[in-house]
């Protein structure tokens, strides 16, 4: 992977902000999709975050990091909605999880669809840091700013998320398949062997 991306130059005018937001849109949509696996819901989340951002655009300080600002708004919007609809979301996520089969793994080759299934089984904290750091290549510091936690917390979450994901995919940290005898052990035993 390439070096973590540095924060892009901060837009100064509203025209520049618009251009920057258009460029950010794929990242925002991917981040939203990592939080709520339903693509339509994810786009609704981006839309809500964008409405909030545009309503408060005067609060954005030129010279600061628009990317972190937008990700933070999107994240806060998601958790705010989640608190409001907690019961409903838990039910739907539970049904979603129930539909998912255990991710198959053969010869260490990870199918993208299997990967998505395994990824959706991670908790929110793990999904968001893996997306920010692993998929987008953001520095830990920026991910910590977005998630509102310490840099060390992001690092440990990334490591735990990767371990859990590898476990779900039946691979080790280098991508090699776990042996049948290892995979047949209870989850706790596998986790303890890392």
């Amino acid at each position, binding site marked *: 992977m390439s070096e973590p991306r540095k924060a892009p130059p901060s837009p100064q005018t509203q025209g520049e902000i618009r251009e920057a937001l258009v460029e950010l*849109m*794929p990242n925002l*949509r991917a981040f939203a999709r990592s939080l709520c696996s339903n693509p339509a819901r994810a786009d609704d989340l981006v839309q809500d975050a964008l409405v909030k951002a545009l309503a408060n655009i005067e609060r954005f300080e030129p010279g600061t990091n628009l990317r972190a600002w937008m990700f933070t708004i999107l994240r806060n919007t998601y958790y705010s909605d989640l608190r409001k609809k907690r019961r409903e979301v838990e039910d739907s996520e539970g049904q979603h999880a129930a539909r998912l089969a255990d991710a198959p793994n053969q010869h260490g080759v990870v199918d993208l669809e299997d990967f998505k299934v395994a990824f959706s089984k991670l908790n929110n904290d793990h999904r968001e840091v893996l997306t920010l*750091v692993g998929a987008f290549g953001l520095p830990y510091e920026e991910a910590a700013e977005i998630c509102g936690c310490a840099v060390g917390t992001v690092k440990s979450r990334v490591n735990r998320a990767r371990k859990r994901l590898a476990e779900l995919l039946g*691979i080790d940290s280098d991508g090699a398949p776990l042996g049948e005898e290892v995979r047949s052990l209870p989850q706790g035993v596998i986790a303890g062997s890392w």
Partner: protein
Amino acid sequence: MTGQPPENKIKAPPDRPRRKRPAEFTPAGRRGDDPITRNLKRVYEQVAAEPIPPDLMKLLDQLGDRTGEDDDV
């Protein structure tokens, strides 16, 4: 007793091969070849390849319109 080292002298530890850091402590941002990072990027690239929904573009255009108004002032 001359010629013998004093008993309280601290001996240097024997040379040991430097322990390799466990893989899980490697900063994830520097990984690239492992299947987890590769697939995270593939998922992102799939989303990035999709066209931006018109509703979102409309919202962004509002900002452009406002910019136009501001420019006129």
